[in-house]
């Protein structure tokens, strides 16, 4: 019990201020490190403030001092008991070429599931178009996909004017932001135990399958591949990786075969989720450029063989990047 509150506050305030100063430095500069003596002093001040809080808790009227001490102890507690690595200075190149592909490989099972759901969707969409061509209107979200593929191909191959002239950059930035939003939503829907992510992946697959089979049945396979592959080689895997992140979140929430508390499980994947979705955003910038500046141009402007060859090179490089990049450094470590 404190008999003389003023004496108590006068004596203790310098220690509280010293603790506050250390905390302010730690909070302002993530790279700041305490040496051994400073760490001892910090711990001593934290324990002293904790003891003061315990004492002041018995003193009825000093709500303000109590709240101040609670805030001080809470901040110090966060610093002292935090065992996760401090965020170091962000190195974007190292992150993209090492951390991102390693994270992708570490969570590869979720990617395979994401791919499988999309393929099932593709099969469903393709079957729907094959069995009931009238379903096209219900399945295709965009009006330009609902028409006859033969007519569209003829129109675009005979076009004399560049329909994107003067708005390629705008179209490109629209695609980048739109696809990034879709990817974020695909991840975020993982909070529904993955159900929302599965629905979005399946729906994407349905559209892809329906469009593909529609053009194949119309005998326009070369146009289809030349149109979709240059940007789709990056865009489709990006959506699959976003799905991977969403399914990872869903799997963590379900917690099958993992006896850790939910909080710990979520803590364990938080960096992986952020890495995956940031990697997706970077890939979608590239896909946006390609879709606007290359994919929309067809023969005779650009031969299909060049577009398809470009797409094949892209998807091969992406596969090698995701499968191999960052392996050597990890082994050395």
């Amino acid at each position, binding site marked *: 019990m404190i008999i003389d509150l003023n004496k108590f506050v006068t004596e203790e305030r310098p220690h509280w201020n010293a603790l506050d100063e250390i905390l302010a430095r730690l909070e302002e500069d993530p790279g700041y490190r305490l040496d051994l003596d400073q760490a001892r002093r910090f711990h001593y001040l934290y*324990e002293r403030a904790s003891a003061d809080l315990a004492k002041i808790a018995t003193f009825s009227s000093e709500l303000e001092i109590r709240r101040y001490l609670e805030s001080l*102890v809470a901040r110090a507690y966060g610093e002292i008991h935090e065992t996760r690595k401090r965020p170091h200075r962000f190195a974007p190149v190292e992150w993209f070429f090492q951390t991102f592909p390693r994270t992708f490989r570490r969570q590869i099972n979720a990617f395979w599931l994401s791919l499988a759901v999309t393929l099932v969707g593709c099969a469903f969409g393709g079957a729907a178009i094959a069995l009931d061509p009238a379903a096209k209107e219900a399945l295709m979200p965009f009006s330009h996909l609902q028409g006859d593929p033969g007519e569209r191909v003829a129109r675009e191959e005979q076009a004399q004017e560049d329909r994107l002239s003067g708005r390629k950059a705008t179209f490109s930035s629209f695609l980048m932001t739109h696809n990034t939003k879709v990817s974020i939503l695909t991840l975020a829907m993982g909070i529904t135990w993955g159900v929302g992510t599965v629905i979005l992946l399946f729906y994407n697959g349905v559209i892809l399958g329906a469009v593909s089979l529609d053009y194949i049945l119309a005998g326009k396979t070369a146009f289809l591949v030349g149109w979709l592959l240059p940007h789709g080689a990056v865009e489709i895997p990006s959506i699959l990786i976003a799905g991977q992140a969403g399914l990872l979140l869903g799997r963590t929430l379900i917690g099958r075969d993992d006896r850790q508390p939910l909080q710990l499980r979520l803590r364990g994947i938080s960096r992986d989720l952020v890495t995956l979705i940031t990697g997706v955003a970077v890939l979608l910038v590239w896909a946006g450029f390609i879709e606007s500046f290359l994919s929309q141009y067809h023969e005779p402007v650009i031969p299909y063989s060049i577009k398809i060859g470009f797409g094949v090179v892209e998807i091969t490089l992406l596969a090698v990047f995701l499968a191999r990049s960052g392996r050597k450094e990890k082994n050395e470590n």
Partner: protein
Amino acid sequence: MKTNSLLIKTPEGIVFSLMLAGPVTRFLAWTVDLACISAMTTAASIAVSLLGLISSDFAWAMMVLVFFAISIGYGMLTEWLWRGQTLGKRLLHLRVMDEQGLRLQPSQIVIRNLLRFVDSLPAFYLVGGIACLSSRRSQRLGDFAANTIVIRHPQIAKLDLDQLLAGKFNSFLKHPHLAARLRQNVSPQTAGVALQALLRREDLDPVARVELFSEMTSFFRSLVEFPPEATEGISDEQYIRNIVDILFRDKT
């Protein structure tokens, strides 16, 4: 059970509480942030429109990208720079914190902001609001996934006790040992109730005022019984005034 505070017990055995922010306060903070985002995008669009002198296509492209970057990045950047606060949260004295009281990590900030895509569905954060109301720790889905909570830390105004207690003799101060016992036995919340009753006494209906102070006097008597010579001839309201004087006044 849903509570408005989160108690954290440290390994040293110290318990501290964090007051949780409710959905209404958070919604108000969000409207302030929305206004900030609108103002920033308007300012940015004016600046970017100057690029139209070079190329209107490039200017439009930049506008789309800048709008996207501000709407997605505002929450992440401000919460990272201001340790869990956006401008709206600052104004309403709110702060994002780790659920276990640990240091807020950048990945937590990113996740809670990305999950806004679901929380804001179908409109006006309906999903997030319902989640917040039904959550034990007032968490929206983004907080849940990121292991974060939003706490409030109200500013406590200094009270002018001299004005409140002016010119009143306090007979209880002749018994310092009983005054010390009173300070020990009364919780901060109870002391606050007594103070508020005095501050708002003029707002009360006369009958209710008499009844309230009578009940409070009985309660404080049950905690510490002052001798008859200290309590004789004083009203219930003066009794509470003396109690508040002991609990709150600086003795130096």
